[in-house]
Each structure stands twice: as C-alpha cells, then as structure tokens.
C-alpha cells in the first residue's frame, strides 16, 4: 500500500463582518443622549440649588419617612398577604370567599382613592372604638402616617396574597406528605418545609413589589404624609426652585431603590439554597466531626 498524498487544501482567511449598521445606530443614540445632556446643562437649572438641598434637613426627613413607610407598609402587606393566601387555600368556603373578596376589593380600586378614603374616614365614623371600648376621635387616630400605612399596606396585602399563593402552589405536594410521614403536623410542615421552599418563588416578586412601594409612597404626599416628594414640594413652594427640587427627589428615589435592589439580591441568594447557585461552605459546617 502506498502512502496517500493529499493535495494541500487552499488556505482562507476569515474576515469578520464590520457591522456598520449597528455601529451607526449606536452613534445616533449617543448623539441623542449628548443632545439631552447638553440641554439639561444649558437649561435654566440652577444646579447649586440641587446641591444645596440634597442633604437639607427637611429633605432628609422626607427620605427617612419614605423608607419607614415602605418598610411598615410592606410588613403589613406581607402579613395580610400570607393570611389571605392561607385563607384562600383553606377547605372552609367562608374563609376562601372572604379572601377572594378582600383581593377583589383592594386590587380593584386605585391606591390613591384608597388613601383618600382612609384619610377622610372621620367623615363617616367621627368616633371609632374597639367593640364599644376605648372610644377615640377618628381625626386623632387617622393621622397622615396611619392613613398612608393602612392604604398602602392593605392594598399591598391583596397583591402579596396572590404571590404567596403562587409560591405555595409551586411546591410539590409530596413535600407535605413526606413531612407528615415523619410525624409533622400540617402547621409545622407548612412553616418548616413548605414556606421556606416557597420563599424561593415568593421573594423575587416581593422584592419587585417593595421597589414599587418605595415609589408608590409618593402618592401619600396627597394626604399630607411627609415623605420625600411632599417635603420637596414644601421647599419649592417657598423658594420656587421647582425643577431643582424635583431633581433632588429623583436622586433620592434612585438611591433608595439602588440600596434595596442590592439587599434583594442577597435575600434571593439566601433562599435559593438547594437549587444550584449557592455557597457550598455553609452546609459543611454542620457536619459533626465523625469519631
């Protein structure tokens, strides 16, 4: 057998596409952006007012109130949401329909309208009491803070209920059965086995809702709650620097949202244990030293 001689194949060089169309588009977008930035720089914005007011006491006070209101209304929303989700999945039809009614009512009306209703509750109930005990004047109880908390928290509960329900439904029913087979009650299994796993599904949308809530608190300015927007408005009613102060508010909302987004990332990582992306070392630490 003689050696087969292959003819030398011709050598080619690959030329990558220059993608001129994409580059042109990017250039156009940059031009538009430069135009907008230029407009703002040359517009009648007195940037020194932005700088002056960014850390003004009244503004900082508004930032603080916005954060407090976001956290409080989310806590109320999550508690109510969990409750409504469990009622919704109950075997008892009365509980189920109460939950459906709650979600229907508070998801079906604008938040702004709900805030106004809570704030003006004194018009229909001048005095409120606990089953006849501890009567109080409604105007004293229904402060802007209270009205905002109830308005935002209760409507948030209606959205959260659906998120929690979806999370619980995403867990295979075998998990409940396995938990019961090692002697757990349904309640214990729900808290130790089902909810921790459902959290993986529940946390990302709740994080999303929290970030939405930071911005929704701005609506509470309409009922005199002293959050960022309301306080910024109070400042520009005095000095007439409307745009400058609105820019201050925008900067603060962006800052708060950024911080919350980072927190959300860490919380999500925590609840995705057992599904790949996770830190390995933790699991090893609980292994006792084998004799």
């Amino acid at each position, binding site marked *: 057998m003689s050696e087969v001689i292959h003819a030398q194949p011709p050598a080619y060089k690959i030329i990558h596409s220059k993608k001129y169309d994409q580059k042109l588009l990017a250039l156009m977008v940059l031009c538009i952006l430069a135009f907008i930035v230029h407009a703002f720089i040359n517009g009648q914005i007195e940037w020194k007012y932005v700088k002056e007011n960014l850390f003004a006491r009244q503004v900082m006070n508004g930032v603080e109130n916005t954060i407090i209101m976001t956290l409080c209304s989310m806590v109320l929303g999550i508690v109510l949401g969990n409750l409504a989700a469990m009622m919704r999945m109950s075997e008892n039809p009365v509980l189920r329909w109460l939950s459906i009614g709650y979600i229907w009512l508070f998801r079906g009306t604008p938040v702004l309208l709900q805030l106004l209703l809570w704030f003006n509750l004194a018009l229909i109930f001048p005095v409120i009491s606990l089953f006849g005990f501890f009567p109080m004047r409604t105007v004293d109880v229904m402060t802007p803070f209270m009205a905002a908390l109830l308005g935002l928290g209760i409507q948030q509960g209606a959205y959260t209920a659906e998120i929690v329900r979806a999370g619980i439904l995403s867990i295979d029913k075998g998990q409940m059965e396995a938990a019961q087979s090692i002697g757990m*009650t349904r309640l214990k299994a729900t808290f*130790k086995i089902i909810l921790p796993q459902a959290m993986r599904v529940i946390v990302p949308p709740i994080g999303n809702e929290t970030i939405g809530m930071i911005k929704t608190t701005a609506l509470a300015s309409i009922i005199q709650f002293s959050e960022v927007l309301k306080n910024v408005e109070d400042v520009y009613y005095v000095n007439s620097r409307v745009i400058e102060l609105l820019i201050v508010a925008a900067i603060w909302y962006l800052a708060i949202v950024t911080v919350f987004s980072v927190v959300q990332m860490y919380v999500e990582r925590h609840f995705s244990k057992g599904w790949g992306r996770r830190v390995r070392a933790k699991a090893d630490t609980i292994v006792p030293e084998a004799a």
Partner: protein
Amino acid sequence: MDHIISAIHVEKYFGAHHVLKDINLEVSPGEVVCIIGPSGSGKSTFLRCINQLETIEGGYVTINGEIAGYKQRGHLLYPLSDKEVAKQRQSVGMIFQRFNLFAHRTVLQNITEGPISVQKRPAKACQDEALVLLERVGLAGKAAAYPNELSGGQQQRVAIARSLAMHPKAMLFDEPTSALDPELIGEVLAVMKELALSGMTMIVVTHEIGFCREVADRVLFMDAGAIIAEGTAEEILQNPQNPRVKNFVSAVL
C-alpha cells in the same frame, strides 16, 4: 393484639369510583408483605390509607392495636386532632416513589429534621445517628450534599435513612424503585433487602417480582381495588392458580 398493622374491611371511594373494596390484612412483627398488581388497582392508595394520607370511607386500620385516626368510644369513632394523627404517624415510616426529600435541606438535615424537630431528641445525638444511618445505606460522605446533587437511587436511600431515623416500628414502601433508572434499582433493593433481614416489618408495593420472590414472607395480588390472591411468594409467583394473576405474572417475568 400482636399485629403491628391490620386493616379491617377497608373501603375507599374517590367520588363515585370504588377504589378499595373490603381490604383485609394483618401484618405481624418482622413480616415482609409485598403487594403486586396492575396500575390503578389501588395498591398505592391502600398504602396511603394505612399512613392516613388518604381517608377511608368504611372499615378501619389499626397500628400497634390503636385505631388509626380515631378515638374509640363505645361503638363510635371520633376523629383525632392533627397533632394526635401526627403522633401516630411517627411509628410508621413511608418511602415514596418520588423520594420527596426536602429540597432546601442537606442530606444530613433531611435525616435529622424529624428526630430533632418532631421527637425533640438532642441535636448532637441525632446527627451522630444520622451519620451511622448514612453509612448503613452506603452514602457515608454525602451528609453535606443537597438532594438535587444526588442520583435518584442515592436520594431514595437517603429517604430510607430519613425514615429509619424516626425509629419506626414498620415501614411502607410505595413503588420505591419505579422512578429510577434500571441501573440504580439494584442499590435501593439491596438496602431494602438488608432492612428486611434485620427484622423490619415492611409492606412493599412494587413491580419488582425478583425482590418479592427473594424477600417477601407473603405476597398479595390486587386487582380493581380488591385483594384477589394471597400467599407465599412461591404460591403467587411460581404457581398462580387465579387466571388473572397467572396472566399478570407471565407478562412481567
């Protein structure tokens, strides 16, 4: 009462569908009972009724002489609370077709969850025992793994260890190898065989005829919700009298 588990005239319906028809079974300590039969014959449902994952419409089940799920007062049976039912379930382990390991817990945590949070035993002792159990099912060194990092066969063996950690008096196996690749079935059956030899009382719903033949003290054949044949493995598998059983056995062998 020297039966660990007994089922007396058990009847079960799913709506109008009569899934269990007058099922009677008495299992003595240390006995291994295999239940075979076609899909949909009610085998798994019966097993789930024993562990009160399903309710029954007629008859009753006893575990260690206690009626499962009810308090007896004269001729009346009153339902037990969720807590009391949970207590009863502790004495009977259950192995599922789909393993059902807790996905958010490591292997070790899966095994110690019940002993620590249900039986309130000291954590250190439970962990030591869990490591011994892991070795017994051939998974020493997997304590820190999460279930999704294990093969099906390994997960099922962890499930067996999880169940054993509760010190059950009897164990129920609901088609433990049906969801496994053929290559992985052997390792699970080997663990079950070892368990049977160690004297564990077992009821096994399975399609593994070889396992029945080797390990079962008694084989039941269920069809359309009724036990239609019962006997030793040899009587049922080698030499079936009932034509329905003969048909089934010749098809699966």
